[in-house]
């Protein structure tokens, strides 16, 4: 028996027989070519929506949080739901860029730049909500331990404060990670663009990158360290977001399963968002060779797995509520499924637990249409999950006398719609001016980057391959 009997040839990560320079051209040309017409239209719409967001925020700050649909009983509404939703979406980027990097998953290189950008913009959208929901934005600096006339620190025992640190750390590390990854590609653009001004701009951010050996060594080390730093954040950020709920004593919130359940949900929704954006981008920019159908399949598998983790948590919550024997817990959960918000609960269940099951079938996993539709369905479901958690537990609390029904106002709705404007404005700028694929990293997972050239049986061939061009790193 041959010692290589277990060797299965992996599908190539980059399709279409590309060379190093054709990859560079494929990605960098997007930035160098004139702006396509559709971009202006999309950018215009996004800008309008972003304007709407600022209008709504201005109105909120001027008038106070009374313009939202909150009432005495339901003191947390869409703002918190949107915050958790956007932060959750961000998690996919960090998982792809940090965790998959440490696990040496070569396929991440096709989507990591893209997903990290999404993370950063999503966290920006998320950050708005906790900041404005305090009502008096001008004293928001109280969340930081700064000296003040009250001689008070923020309450270090409160998860709301941990959240401030968790999210701001997360944003900083994500930004750094993204930026460090961009440096070699920025240098590539610097060397390719025609305009002097563009060269200077890319050059300034490329920090004098020449692609020398020493630079690559430092770069790889820095990248590894940042990946190590970012990995715990994948778990910690949404754990702490879940503490915002779990540390309270509200039935339906006070649940020990929350941290893992929130993290799984975050990754679930994040991958769905990456999928939505990626399916559009690869089509428009003709990047099917790099973001292949195999990538989509792998991501769909992750969506299926995390979807079931979330589904398990939903079911387990019910079980524990019954098993605990606590009347209030039982009521909280039965009320979710049958009470005034049952419609939201069942939207959540069907979108998050039932819909992803299509991905058990290979055909569905590899269908662009199905992937696209389900990715949107999942994100709708995850929004409703946060709605169900936040609103149902508050609306029917311990005192039936104070029960109330919560509905958002137009300001709530338009603010949420507006955050998409902010998100897509940033994202379109990213697509237009930065390489949306990590050019240098994709090259590392191409066969040309592996100088051994195993043949089908895993043996080293004797003959040289013609594709071995000059060992270039960034052109």
């Amino acid at each position, binding site marked *: 028996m041959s010692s290589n009997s277990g060797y299965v040839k992996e599908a190539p990560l980059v399709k279409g027989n590309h060379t190093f320079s054709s990859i560079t051209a494929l990605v960098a040309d997007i930035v160098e070519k004139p702006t396509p017409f559709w971009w202006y239209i999309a950018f215009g719409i996004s800008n309008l929506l972003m304007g709407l967001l600022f209008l709504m925020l201005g109105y909120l700050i001027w008038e106070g949080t009374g313009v939202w649909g909150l009432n005495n009983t339901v003191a947390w509404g869409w703002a918190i739901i949107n915050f958790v939703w956007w932060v959750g979406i961000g998690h996919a980027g960090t998982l792809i860029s940090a965790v998959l990097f440490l696990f040496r998953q070569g396929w991440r290189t096709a989507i990591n730049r893209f997903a990290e950008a999404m993370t950063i913009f999503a966290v920006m959208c998320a950050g708005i909500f906790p900041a404005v929901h305090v009502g008096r934005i001008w004293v928001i600096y109280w969340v930081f331990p700064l*000296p003040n006339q009250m001689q008070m620190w923020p309450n270090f025992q409160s998860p709301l404060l941990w959240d401030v640190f968790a999210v701001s750390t997360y944003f900083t590390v994500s930004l750094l990670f993204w930026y460090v990854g961009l440096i070699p590609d920025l240098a590539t653009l610097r060397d390719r663009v025609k305009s002097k001004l563009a060269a200077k701009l890319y050059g300034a951010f490329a920090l*004098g990158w020449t692609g020398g050996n020493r630079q690559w060594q430092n770069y790889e080390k820095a990248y590894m360290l940042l990946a190590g730093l970012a990995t715990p954040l994948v778990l910690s950020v949404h754990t702490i977001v879940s503490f915002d709920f779990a540390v309270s004593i509200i039935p339906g919130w006070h649940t020990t399963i929350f941290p893992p359940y929130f993290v799984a949900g975050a990754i679930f929704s994040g991958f769905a968002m990456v999928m939505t954006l990626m399916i559009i981008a690869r089509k428009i920019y003709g990047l099917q060779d790099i973001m292949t159908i195999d990538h989509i399949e792998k991501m769909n598998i992750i969506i299926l797995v995390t979807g079931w983790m979330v589904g398990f948590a939903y079911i387990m919550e019910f079980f524990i509520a019954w098993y605990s024997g606590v009347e209030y817990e039982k009521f909280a959960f039965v009320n979710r499924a049958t009470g005034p918000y049952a419609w939201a609960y069942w939207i959540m269940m069907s979108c998050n637990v039932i819909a992803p099951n299509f991905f058990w079938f290979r055909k569905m996993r590899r269908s662009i249409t199905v992937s696209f539709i389900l990715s949107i369905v999942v994100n709708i479901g995850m929004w409703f999950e946060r709605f169900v958690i936040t609103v149902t537990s508050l609306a029917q609390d311990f005192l039936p006398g104070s029960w109330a029904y919560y509905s958002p106002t137009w300001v709530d709705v338009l603010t949420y719609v507006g955050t998409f404007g902010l998100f897509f404005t940033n994202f379109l700028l990213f697509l237009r001016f930065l390489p949306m694929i990590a050019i240098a990293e994709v090259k590392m997972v191409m066969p040309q980057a592996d100088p051994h050239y195993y043949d089908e049986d895993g043996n080293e061939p004797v003959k040289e391959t013609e594709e071995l061009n000059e060992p270039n790193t960034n052109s």
Partner: protein
Amino acid sequence: MAQLFPKWANKVPKKLLLSVNLLLLAVIFGFWYWGSPKYTQVGYAPSQPIDYSHRLHAGELGIDCQYCHGSVMESANAGIPSTETCMTCHSQIATDSPMLEPLYEAWETGNPVEWVHIHKLPGFAYFNHSAHVNVGVGCATCHGRVDRMEVVMQSEPLSMGWCLDCHNNPEPYLRPVEEVTNMAWEPEEDHFEFARMVISKKNINPPIYCNACHR
């Protein structure tokens, strides 16, 4: 290819990092110093509808504070004297003074004199004069030497930190209750023995839990 950047550009990132951090610290310090009530509140001395002088009445004439701020020992508010209180003297004294015209006008029309409020806590903070004055915290501790002021000026920040500074350690500020309105009172040699004695006798225990002041 020609170099895009001159040589000094190498140092820019480091310098940028340093200056951004310094700027941040400067901003924090600036707000902490110039933004604090010590800076923004102390010294507030609006001009009043009548050029009434504490230096003359409370200082030179030696009228006791309670003659005009009569509810200070009994209630939360010290109170501002009514027109009648002034008229106890000014129905006879300096009746032809042009400075007193607004007072006589108020007296005739029955409208109160519109004094400008100086020491003012936000509505969410509760303060009670009687609780302080009756255990021997003097007016001068919180309002300064009013008897030397031509126009009343806020001399303490009245910030929460200021309240707490005393609540955490009231000893240096206590005096015999008879002396609270005495502006010139100075602590004696054995002040701390006295203070400890008063504290244990009256069981003085200034609250520092939030809902003492934020009810």
